[in-house]
């Protein structure tokens, strides 16, 4: 219990630190939202008028306490560029990004784990070399490059989806999944490559354990050992990695949503940064941070439930 409380305190401190960082980072970089909205032609009075309407002319400390105070109470304020509350904007966009993220996770797990196990089974063969080659390739490809490649190959040549024509799940689930498959794959490929390598190493490590030799000596078949014992133990080693992956899936989707023009959290974040839409950016960053921090918190708890030895280290 003490372990959990300690973790929760760290979690809150992390969030507070992140809120300070994001708030001041976006106020240090140049750019006046009022001027951005009104453009070069607007008169000074008009810009000043908008500035006071937006509250961006107040002292920074006032702006911060106002924002964080509202945030804690669930009031995220109004977006500067979109004339609506931040919470309304996030509704409908969170679902898109979360669905995209889920699809990525499913792809990563469904392909990464079997591939890793398969690769471990083929140690010192030409097949292992081939898998190694492709995992290296997968890790090296940046998401935006894969996105462009997929748009070109699957969209413009093979016509498996229509680039630029996003279909909301509210209109059609099959069309939605069809459009989302390729962005999800673009985010998933590097993650699949990492997971494959990781699983392979974990399985090989496990295979060199004494109990495996003993089981082998007892005449249990290699595959029975692999699936009956080794895999289960190896997965424990993979759980923290999956926690880390949530973070990179989020950062991957920020870029990929932009390239595929998907109206999700990532694209909203980018346009809010270029538009200096501070209330929106801050809330989005806090949201993403919260998801990552909480996921890692859950992973920590999960691991220690599975393997109580970690609790001792925690003390």
């Amino acid at each position, binding site marked *: 219990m003490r372990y959990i409380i300690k973790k929760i305190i*760290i979690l809150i401190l*992390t969030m507070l630190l*992140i809120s300070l960082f994001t708030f001041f980072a976006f106020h240090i970089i*140049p*750019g*006046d939202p009022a*001027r*951005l*909205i*009104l*453009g*070069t*032609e*607007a*008169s*000074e*009075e008009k810009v000043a*008028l*908008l500035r006071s309407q937006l509250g961006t002319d107040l002292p920074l400390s006032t702006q911060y306490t106002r924002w964080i105070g509202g945030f804690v109470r669930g009031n995220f304020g109004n977006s500067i*560029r*979109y*004339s609506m509350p931040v919470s309304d*904007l996030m509704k*409908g*966009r969170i679902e898109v990004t979360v669905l995209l993220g889920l699809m990525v996770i499913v792809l990563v797990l469904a392909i990464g784990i079997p591939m890793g196990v398969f690769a471990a089974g083929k140690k010192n063969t030409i097949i292992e070399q081939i898998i190694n080659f492709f995992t290296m390739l997968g890790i090296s490809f940046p998401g*935006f490059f894969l996105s462009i490649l997929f*748009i070109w190959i699957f*969209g*413009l040549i093979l016509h498996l989806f*229509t*680039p*630029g*024509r996003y279909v*909301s799940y509210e209109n059609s689930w099959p069309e939605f999944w069809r459009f989302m498959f390729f962005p999800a794959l673009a985010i998933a490929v590097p993650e699949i490559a990492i997971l494959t390598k990781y699983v392979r190493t974990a399985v090989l490590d496990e295979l060199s354990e004494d109990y495996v030799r003993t089981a082998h000596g007892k005449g249990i078949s290699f595959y029975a050992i692999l699936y009956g014992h080794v895999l289960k133990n190896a997965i424990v080693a993979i759980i923290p990695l999956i926690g*880390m992956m949530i*973070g*990179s899936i989020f*950062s991957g989707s*920020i*870029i990929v949503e*932009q*390239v*595929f*023009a998907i*109206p999700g959290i990532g*694209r*909203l*974040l*980018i*346009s809010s*940064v*270029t*538009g*200096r839409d501070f209330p929106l950016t801050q809330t989005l*960053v806090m949201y*993403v*941070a919260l998801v*990552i*921090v909480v996921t*890692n918190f859950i992973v920590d708890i999960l691991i220690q439930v599975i393997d109580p030895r970690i609790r001792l280290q925690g003390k």
Partner: protein
Amino acid sequence: MNKRLSVLALALTAALTVAACATTAAPAPQASAPAQESASAETAPAIKDGGEFVYGLATEVNNFDPFKATTADAKSIYFNIYEGLVKVTPEGTFEPAVAESYEISEDAKTFTFTLRDGVKFHNGSTVTTKDVLYSIQLAIDNALNGFGNIESIEAPDDKTVVVTLKEGNIDFLSAASTAIVPEGSDDNGEHALAPIGTGPFKFGEYAVQDYVTLERFDDYWGEPAHLDSVKVKFIASSSDYQISYQSGAIDGFTANAGITEQIDKNTAKIFVANSNAVQLLALNNDFEPFSDENVRKALCYAVDSTEIIDTVNYGYGVKLGSGLIPGLTAFYDETLADTYDVDIEKAKSLLAEAGYADGFTFTVRVPSVYQVHVDTAQVIVNQLAKIGVTMNIEQVDWATWLEKVYSNRDYEATIISLDGSIASPTAFLARYVSDAHNNFVNFKSDAYDEAYKAAVASIDEQERIAKFKECQKVLADEAASVYIQDISNILVYNNHFDGYVGYPLYAVDFSVIYKVD
């Protein structure tokens, strides 16, 4: 915790990087001037009413309030929703719209508008003088250009609105093209997301970061639109126009000239239009070498606009020598384009005269969102090297540019296109008056101030034209900056659509587009 924070930092860095290179921002150029080229000029097909046109737009329009949202792209869309008492014609003059006629007093102080009978708003109600008074008050409250000069507004009867100005200004007519909206329709800021106007299209549905639809307004007082609806689809960046067009996700878009090299001209209709913006190498006249007129002139002689147009714009651009767009034909002085023909020797001797015989070094701050300006900078680096001047390029993001360069004037030189919010020479020339709030090049000239003041005060059309031409000449003669070109824009439709009318300001007129088969 370190790792987790760094993951987040990575995500943010990525976001910022992409943001910097992927968005096109506010005053991007757009449509005007009659079409000069139609690639697939088939035998005129019969106009067929109906259908939906999907128009791609690389920036997102997220506010439809005509008194607030003034990004150039927003204006180009709401041109179809709103109308003023008068509206701009393709030639740059003004014709009655919501008003049936207008009268301007001799001293240009009193503008009398007579309302047209039976003009309907999109909500079904008929336009009354109350609506007009409300709209003008909104324009005053929002400090729109030209409205600060209003002394009083009144409606002597239910068909007439009289606007009295503090100082006579014939140019108020261009301000009268500002939107007319129903009385009380924006009391709670509703315009932003539920705009009501009198234009040929009414606002349909808006999906954040996805699209906005416009539907034909059947009770429109004028020539009704051909299309049933227009879907303005927001695409991620201008580099995605071609992909979305080729995949069929959009039917048309406006882009830089480079696109003509990538589009199959047999299946596309291509219209070439001036962007109605003045591209210039703006020199901060307060910065040490540029405070010397001879140095500025030397740069004018060294920069070859024609080469820039040919290499950066594939030849699509109109060479400029001063600060006004050719689209405002009545006021534009085309002879100034040749004020400085390339002359390296003359440039060198001017530099020597100013005490910079060995050249000097300066930094040009270019907004990275505009590839065309970045490319232009690269060409100019080579051109200036010939007279021993070293130009370093510093790319900044749009928000930074606006604050540092435009608002704070903290720069040595920059490259930008300046557009006008209204079809009036004042929109382009007011900024060079010595004490103008937006005189970001810090140009100071008594001759200019005098000519501009006379032009604005004049109520005689011929004198106004002469004085505005004089303004342009001063800008050229005193080399306020290095004027380059009015970049041409390319409008591309697929072969299912046709119809195009250009205006000397930033607008896309959807009402003239029709479907062909």
